[in-house]
């Protein structure tokens, strides 16, 4: 990290110094300041879409287009994720073979806590996502882990998200250099172009939200994970955050990493952190 930022400062020299005078944050370019990042990130969207109410950003494409919003509201009357939600509730209540259940693995019995995930685990020194915690809970109780991209994991996370609906996203970054590094790694992944189409997450979700990509409207990056997991008409099924990251990668013709790879956990950490304060709206229905 040190060498690269020194190189950066050297090469930008004059322009940077002039710019540094105006906003002190840049002088300390390599000192990571998540709180300032989050503020800048949110203001970028609030100024770019002044007509959109702040909490509406979590509705993704539907906050960007009236016709799509109407189709969504009609679906929401009896949403297609209804079955996953019921299945998740039932699974959550069914004890494991050893008598314990998910409630024993999570604070507050796992109810109304989704907004605190992913969190930075200081023992492990890494970001732990809700999907990872669920599988670890299963393994700790002698059960086989679920696939990260299939329906069981989506049903469980759908129910846990449902119990947190409306609660503001509340991601914490502890005062631990490894947490800052994970956050910065997530930010790097978010803005890094990949795949033969040479897109980064930002190319679509920061530079052109609200615009069409064939039939679909691009969702703004702000609050894009607040509605997870989502039932997508395109998959005619549920999708977890892992499934969304993997499919997004392959759409830009980048070979996806394995679900819950460090980069995915870090980018989830970054994207969730900058959406702090916006309400959880999962599970969601999307095109």
């Amino acid at each position, binding site marked *: 990290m040190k060498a*690269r930022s020194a*190189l*950066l400062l050297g090469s930008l020299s004059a322009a940077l110094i002039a710019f540094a005078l105006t*906003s002190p*944050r*840049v002088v300390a370019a390599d000192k990571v300041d998540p709180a300032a*990042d989050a503020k*800048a*990130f949110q203001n*970028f969207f609030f100024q770019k879409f002044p007509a959109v109410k702040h909490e509406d950003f979590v509705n993704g494409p539907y906050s960007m287009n009236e016709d799509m919003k109407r189709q969504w509201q009609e679906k929401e009357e009896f949403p297609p994720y209804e079955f996953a939600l019921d299945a998740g509730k039932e699974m959550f209540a069914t004890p494991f073979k050893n008598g314990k259940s998910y409630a024993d693995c999570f604070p507050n019995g796992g109810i109304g806590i989704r907004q605190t995930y992913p969190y930075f685990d200081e023992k492990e020194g890494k970001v732990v996502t809700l999907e990872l915690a669920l599988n670890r809970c299963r393994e700790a109780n002698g059960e086989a882990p679920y696939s990260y991209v299939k329906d069981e994991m989506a049903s469980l996370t759908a129910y846990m998200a449902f119990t947190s609906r409306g609660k503001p996203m509340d991601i914490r970054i502890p005062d631990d250099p490894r947490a800052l590094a994970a956050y910065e790694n997530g*930010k*790097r992944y978010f*803005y*890094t*172009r*990949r*795949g*033969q189409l*040479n897109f*980064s997450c*930002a*190319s679509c979700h*920061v*530079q052109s939200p609200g615009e069409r990509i064939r039939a679909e409207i691009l969702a703004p990056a702000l609050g894009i994970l607040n509605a997870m997991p989502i039932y997508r008409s395109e998959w005619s099924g549920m999708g977890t955050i892992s499934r969304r990251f993997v499919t997004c990668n*392959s759409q830009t*013709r*980048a*070979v996806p*990493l394995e679900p819950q790879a460090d*980069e995915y956990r870090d980018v989830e950490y970054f994207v969730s952190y900058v959406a702090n304060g916006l309400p959880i709206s999962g599970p969601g229905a999307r095109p």
Partner: protein
Amino acid sequence: MKQSLPLAMLLALLLTLGLAPAARAANEAEFKAAYSAAEAASKEAAGMRNQWTVTVSALAAAKKAADGGDFDRATAASKEAEALAKASIVQATSEKEAWKAMEIR
């Protein structure tokens, strides 16, 4: 498609010189060299966690063509795979710094 032009010229050359039988063996060696170069570049790209799906499918197409004995197509596909892998390596290297320009400040 950009590969087809050199391929066509190669074929034309072979036909005129009537070296078809000798060319058949040389092509296999030529393919092996091209394929291993492509594989090396592809491994490097994967090592940088920035592999492209098109590189993987070009490599697979090369192998399939070679198994079928069509070494001309196999060599062309290997060359394409190598080019794609190299491009993904350039992308990963340049993005190490370039991403900061996109960052919302």
